[in-house]
């Protein structure tokens, strides 16, 4: 195995460009999935007639599908019927929908875990249901759901690699391309990619652990 040749500057730059793409897709998807997840999770928690049931059904269906299939559907299937999105946005949209559904469930169970006494006390002090939700339940619940939320973002960063199926030039796609140019590059490229993913995700997992420790 020729590590020196494999880690030539053009090769490293190519992999780092892929990683930059990975981070951009992940960053946007984290923002969108967080917004989507908080909105859908709160609606589901609030038990609004019909709306909550419909959202529960959609969220549960998405959670039970492979993300790879969702990305493929948005990036490859829909374009064949004329609904065309650039691969970058297909990846962002696919990830945001799937991870948004996962976060919605985290939000719902986080809100449900807020002590009933807190809710009753707020209502008894004259707050309306919306005010209670906004000032009492959401802040308390969000704090409790932050560790699983960070874990979900780690999963999201890992999941960006599934965009290889739509040939988005992110890190794993570039590993694949580099591997195609020489057998000697495969293992070095995989090691380099692992280190990049590991560094970002392990740091985030330490954040999650610290958030968890602060709560007890």
């Amino acid at each position, binding site marked *: 195995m020729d590590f020196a040749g494999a880690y030539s500057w053009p090769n490293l730059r190519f992999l780092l460009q892929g990683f930059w793409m990975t981070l951009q897709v992940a960053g946007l998807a984290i923002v969108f999935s967080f917004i989507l997840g908080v909105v859908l999770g709160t609606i589901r928690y609030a038990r609004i007639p019909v709306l909550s049931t419909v959202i529960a059904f959609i969220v549960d269906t998405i959670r039970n*599908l*492979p993300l*790879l299939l969702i990305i*493929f559907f948005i990036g490859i299937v829909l374009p064949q019927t004329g609904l065309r999105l650039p691969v970058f946005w297909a990846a962002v949209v696919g990830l945001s929908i799937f991870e948004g559904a996962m976060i919605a469930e985290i939000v719902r169970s986080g809100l449900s875990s807020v002590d009933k006494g807190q809710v009753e006390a707020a209502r008894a002090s004259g707050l309306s249901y919306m005010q209670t939700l906004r000032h009492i339940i959401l802040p308390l619940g969000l704090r409790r759901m932050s560790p699983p939320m960070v874990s979900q973002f780690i999963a999201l960063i890992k999941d960006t690699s*599934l965009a290889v*199926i739509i040939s988005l030039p992110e890190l794993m796609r570039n590993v694949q391309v580099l591997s195609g140019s020489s057998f000697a590059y*495969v293992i070095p490229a*995989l090691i380099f990619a692992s280190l990049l993913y590991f560094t970002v995700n392990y740091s985030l997992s330490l954040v999650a652990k610290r958030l968890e420790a602060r709560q007890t």
Partner: protein
Amino acid sequence: MVIWDSSVLFDHWDRYMQGFGQTVLASLLALIGSLIIGTIIAILRISPYRWLNVFGAAYVEFLRNIPLLVVVFFFFLGLPSLGIPLDGFSSGTIGLMVYTSSFIAEAIRAGIQAVPKGQTEAARSSGLSYVQSMWHVVLPQAVKVVLPAVGNQMINLVKNSAILGVVAGLDLMYYADLISSDTFLPIPVYTFVALFYLVLTVPLSMAVHYMERRFARSNA
């Protein structure tokens, strides 16, 4: 242009079934393997030997923080580059197995550590050996935490098995691609693929949900 035609399901039923069968097979093989590896790693992590702890922790932390695709590519691209050829189905299934084992190990460890230390101490001081106290006292209580977590990993396994489609692993995603290029009807072809996955994951999700509620009640 025709967009929807349900007949793709019946016209290509055999290929759907072949892919579905391989998806189920890959998930089952990976589940069995990851339960075995995961249990061993969990034992290493709680064993009294420091070096085994470190190895177990490193194994879990490394695999949990890299994408499944890296692991699968290691078997699909990496091994052949070293002169060990492996087909898509095998490399996908082995990759799934190794990746999932780290999550199973973590679930088992969390379950065992959720049992209060006083339980082990009481069992030991009543004259039970370490193994006896594990088997009769700790593990039966740990099951309540471990079982739903393992169930969740089974759901993830089925969903993650779609990665076989990336390495031509002859699964549902792979056959869907064949059917789609024959029929030019990707929308219905992949909608049925989605339904096939749901047939597997929805009952599993319901079982996990039931277990979680059942065990929550027994704790109260």
